[in-house]
């Protein structure tokens, strides 16, 4: 061991230990994320939260109940125009008072494609780095922090503050590759389990005031294992095909494919240009979601997801009729 200085030995130990610590940290983060996924879908909870994005601050209320009838959820705004999303076994209804409209989407059959496991975002090839650590008191509950940082510019990062006992989400921060927050959601009061008031699931909204919007007819679509006819020639690193559905009869072109990197998901819609106005061509923003739409050969191609503009544009510009379909 002559010439092998203690300082070098200490450095080697420190490096190897830090690697182990990082791996353990990542493993712990994954355990917390799995707890969150289970808790958010299987537990009952209720609370008021503040949502901040850009210069806008909005206050909302969520009631999520799970019982033998499945999941029932009501999310509505307490400030500004009345807007509401109701999810139950009948599907999703979105009430948008400021445009006097409602968007309805019945329950869509589950994808045949396997859900990407959380281990996908833990491995080295993934676009994310997982970290856990830190705690804070939020809405009267102790919360643990889990951070998912993007490794490239094709996806966003997330900070989750999870209730210590259950893993329920108490604070959520979306940030870009520079760790600059893009949006924040913080609960100001939070109740779970038997403390949830089920009466709040009932909407005060008068149904006859709404107008149903028909952008496409989801009842006529079918989820399939077949390869999409329209698909991107290339995808950002880590993204894989997650689901595919299309119009089941000869009523025109409608194809919807979802690509995911295990955490972020991007939808690709290929639809025949109808007589009504389609999505604005170019880039649009819907909350923290970016969308990019373009026309190609009488078809409208729209890519949407909670990813940077660069990602939706990259995918949209790569969409082409697959060789097998020609």
């Amino acid at each position, binding site marked *: 061991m002559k010439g092998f200085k203690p300082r070098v030995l200490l450095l080697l130990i420190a490096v190897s230990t830090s690697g182990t610590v990082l791996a353990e940290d990542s493993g712990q983060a994954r355990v917390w994320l799995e707890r969150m*996924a289970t808790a*958010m879908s299987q537990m009952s909870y209720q609370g*008021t939260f503040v949502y*901040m*994005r850009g210069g*806008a601050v909005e*206050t*909302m209320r969520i009631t*999520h109940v799970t019982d033998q009838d499945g999941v029932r959820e009501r*999310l509505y705004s307490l*400030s500004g125009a009345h*807007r509401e*999303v109701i999810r139950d076994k009948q599907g*999703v209804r*979105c009430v*948008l008072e400021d445009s006097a409209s409602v*968007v309805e*989407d019945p329950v*869509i059959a589950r*994808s045949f494609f396997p*859900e990407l496991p959380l281990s996908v975002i833990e491995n080295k090839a993934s676009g994310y780095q997982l970290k856990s650590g830190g705690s804070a008191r*939020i809405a009267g509950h102790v919360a643990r922090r889990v951070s998912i940082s993007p490794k490239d510019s094709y996806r966003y990062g*997330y900070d989750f503050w999870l209730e210590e006992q259950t893993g329920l*989400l108490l604070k959520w921060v979306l940030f870009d590759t520079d760790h*600059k*927050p893009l*949006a924040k959601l913080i609960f*100001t*009061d939070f109740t779970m389990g038997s*403390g949830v*008031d089920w009466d709040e699931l009932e909407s*005060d909204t008068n149904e006859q005031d709404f107008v149903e919007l028909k*952008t496409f007819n989801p009842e006529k679509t079918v989820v399939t294992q077949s390869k999409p006819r329209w698909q991107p*020639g*290339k*995808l*950002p*690193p880590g993204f*894989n*095909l*997650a689901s595919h559905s299309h119009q089941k009869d000869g009523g025109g072109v409608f194809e919807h494919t*979802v690509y*995911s990197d295990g955490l*972020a*998901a991007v*939808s690709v819609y290929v639809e025949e240009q109808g007589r009504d*106005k*389609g*999505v*604005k061509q*170019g880039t*649009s*923003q*819907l*909350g923290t979601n970016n*969308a990019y739409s373009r026309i190609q050969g009488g078809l409208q191609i729209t890519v949407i997801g*909670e990813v940077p503009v*660069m990602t939706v544009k990259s995918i949209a*510009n*790569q969409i082409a009729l697959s060789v097998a379909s020609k």
Partner: protein
Amino acid sequence: MSKESFEHLSRLMDGELSRETGLFLTRRLASDEALCATWERYHLIRDCIRQPGSKVVVTGLREKLNESLIEEDSPRFSPWRSSGWLKPVSGVAIAASVAIMAIVFSTPQPDNLPGMATDTALTTNVNQPFVSPNTLPMVTVSQPVSYAPGGQGNPERLNAYLLRHNQMARTAGRQGFVSFVSIVATRSESVEDNSEEQPGSADKGPVQAAENNK
């Protein structure tokens, strides 16, 4: 509105209200516009209080809110911190910056320069007396920043796309209701497209063949 209501609102913000009272107050928030406006105002006031003494507090509420978003940004490594000899220099630099800013703010601005925004709401007039931020029309701050009206496509179609996306993207279920917050929060916004990227040019970026992913 009673003093008690104000106190309850304040305690609700701090998460100190009992569950029963919180529920009662939340129901009132859904129907009482005045209470709801106060609730929004409290959030803005709290945000403003965090950095007192700044001009932005008075005139740039939107900027203040942006700052609050950045507030909890993770700490960055700063090369300046490690250089002790730079401290005196940085002190001089800061003083100089403040002096320059003072000059900029006190220089009289000509009226209606071409291309210059004439919205006085965000313009600071140093001769005007201090105006409490509480008197600003807070409600507008919680409105969508911008919205693409008719003539620029159908925003409801985007909403429908997003709803279906959230349903089909099973990974979105991991964050539960958060995926739907965007729909409740804002209408679609038209975004200025500064990218030069053209169809087919994406293959120059670090993307991989889709076939490899299958």
